[in-house]
């Protein structure tokens, strides 16, 4: 009896350890940055000027462009379900000697249906003083869900467009050459945002572009293709909960059933 009790206790302890380890591992593995295995760093050197001509960027790549203040620069990158995108842009402004005033730069992110997405964190609009050498902007989007109601603005898997432009500048500063850099970063946020349902096709604006090569770039897939959205760490949590419940049931049963022999019955009866 002592042995069975000890073994029960050991089993319960092991189960608890396993579940916590499993849950902790699932937790730890969630906020791991999903870096592309390909070469990171070099990206496209030209930016598009509209949604239709936006340049495709992969996450981890640094896209650069030379433009003039007043241009509208567009890039597009793919984001998959369960990822949270952070877009960082840096604009290198011309020498203070040729500038005449402060300039306000602005970063906007749109989803595959050209709907403007709100930024959770990050300075979307930044005013660079007359002598500031650069303006740094960033935008962190909400985590991408695999399904949303048609009346919701939730981010869905697909392409995300980034637009960088000057919002307000001295009249003589418009048209001056600037250099822009953009880097999208995607992080896996894991099971807390895993929802039910999935779209049949990602929300890319590629459409039926038969011969347009740029259309193909807009439907660029993330590394390893689009995920089916079936796996999440919820499976581990639920299984661990079930296991724990079963072990607790066994433990409770053994506690109250005791030896199975009522006290008032003599042995051998």
């Amino acid at each position, binding site marked *: 009896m002592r042995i069975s009790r000890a073994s029960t206790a050991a089993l319960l302890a092991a189960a608890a350890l396993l579940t916590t380890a499993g849950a902790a591992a699932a937790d730890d593995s969630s906020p791991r940055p999903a870096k592309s295995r390909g070469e990171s760093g070099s990206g496209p050197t030209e930016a598009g000027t509209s949604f*239709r001509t936006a340049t495709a960027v992969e996450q981890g790549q640094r896209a650069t462009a*030379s433009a003039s203040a007043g241009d509208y620069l567009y890039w597009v990158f793919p984001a998959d379900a369960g990822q949270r995108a952070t877009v960082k842009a840096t604009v290198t402004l011309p020498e203070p000697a040729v500038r005449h005033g402060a300039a306000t730069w602005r970063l906007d992110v749109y989803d595959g*249906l050209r709907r403007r997405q709100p930024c959770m964190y990050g300075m979307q609009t930044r005013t660079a003083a007359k002598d500031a050498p650069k303006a740094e902007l960033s935008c962190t989007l909400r985590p991408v869900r695999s399904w949303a109601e048609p009346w919701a603005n939730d981010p869905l898997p697909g392409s995300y467009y980034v637009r960088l432009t000057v919002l307000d500048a001295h009249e*003589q500063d418009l*048209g001056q050459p600037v250099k822009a850099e953009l880097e999208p970063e995607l992080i896996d946020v894991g099971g807390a945002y895993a929802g039910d349902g999935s779209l049949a096709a990602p929300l890319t604006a590629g459409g039926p572009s038969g011969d347009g090569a740029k259309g193909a770039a807009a439907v660029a897939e993330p590394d390893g293709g689009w995920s089916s959205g*079936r796996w999440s760490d919820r499976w581990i949590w639920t299984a661990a*909960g079930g296991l724990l419940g079963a072990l*607790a049931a066994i433990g409770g049963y053994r506690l109250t059933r005791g030896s199975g022999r*009522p006290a008032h*019955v003599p042995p051998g009866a």
Partner: protein
Amino acid sequence: MIIRKRLAAAACGLLAVLASGLLPSAAAADEPAAKPSPKVELVLDVSGSMRARDIDGQTRMAAAKQAFNEVLDAVPDEVQLGIRTLGANYAGDDRKVGCKDTRQLYPVGPLDRTEAKTAVATLAPTGWTPIGPALLGAADDLEGGEATRRIVLITDGEDTCAPLDPCEVARDIAAKGIHLVVDTLGLVPDAKTRDQLRCIAEATGGTYTSVQHTDELSDRVSQLVDRAADPVVTPVATEGARECAKAPVLKAGLYTDREKFGEHRWYRVDVLPGQELRASVSVAADRAVNNDYGVMLRAVTVRGREIVRGSEAGDGRTDVISTGLRYPKAPAEDADDDAKPAPETVCLQVSNSYSAPPQVKTDPGLPIELTVDVVDAPEEASDVASFGLGRGWWLLGVLALTGLLAGLLWGWVSRWRISVWRTN
């Protein structure tokens, strides 16, 4: 032996069929559909003001010639380039004659670099600055074909041929055909030149650059010419109607239209059960508009019930305001394979809330870009969480507690049962 021979014959026959099947497909490889080559026209100002010596110590004309030489060397092969001048011939004082002084220096076509460079080398700063007529001439030069067309206007002073406003000319020529963009470059510009060139660029969706150095000029013009060579999906021109019943039926694709301030344009799309309609629209601000604006894209049934809408509001300087919507249609309940399901006609309404000061022209309307796509419907969600699964410490606690209680209860029940069994 007969069997072996038959087998051998069959194998040979199979091989022959396979080979013949493979060879033609290798020989008749599909050639990609020939794309129309993009056309670019460089419009250069050769007016008297180009004599000024303020770009890197040389005259503006010399700087422009040097930049042109570099650009002509770097033009991609598939681009058809043309060159037009303005103010290159008439040095006199008659304004009427001076304002017609624009001629084509090199015709739009496959580029012969030496010939073009020789033609540019002969230019000398001469006369007036008829920007409006030059733009009209350039639009005529680029006429015809389905290709993307780009005009790059390089000038140093503002138009001297009022009342023809070059900004309105630019907007009109952009409205006549689709996919004509005018980019402007100002050489050491003053305030009025800047305003005018910015207006021209914004009226057509192009860019404005102010140039102070020769290398800036050549880099920028090369960049603009390369942009023309980029393969891009060309939108199809369509015209929305005032009401849904008369609206054009659109298939999936990219469309362009024009809409005036406060006008509603309707389009129709057919959606089968089990498909999802995705539409997005961008309305461009190609003229001076007031600070606040908005757009709405609404999907409505033919009877007038609103299904879903997308709307967006904004303020400040912008090129477009965009929004989109999705409408997933559930698959038909009775999966009747024989009868084809009837498509539902969805009416799309595009409306904008741009406004402008009274002196701004309202005709032609603002450019709209509409994308329509029809894909399969999604798997609808039956729960908030993926597969209805759970997550978190509370879940583990609740399941463990439930298990414990169930175990305790079952232990008591079994104990009572055994005691009942033993005593009977």
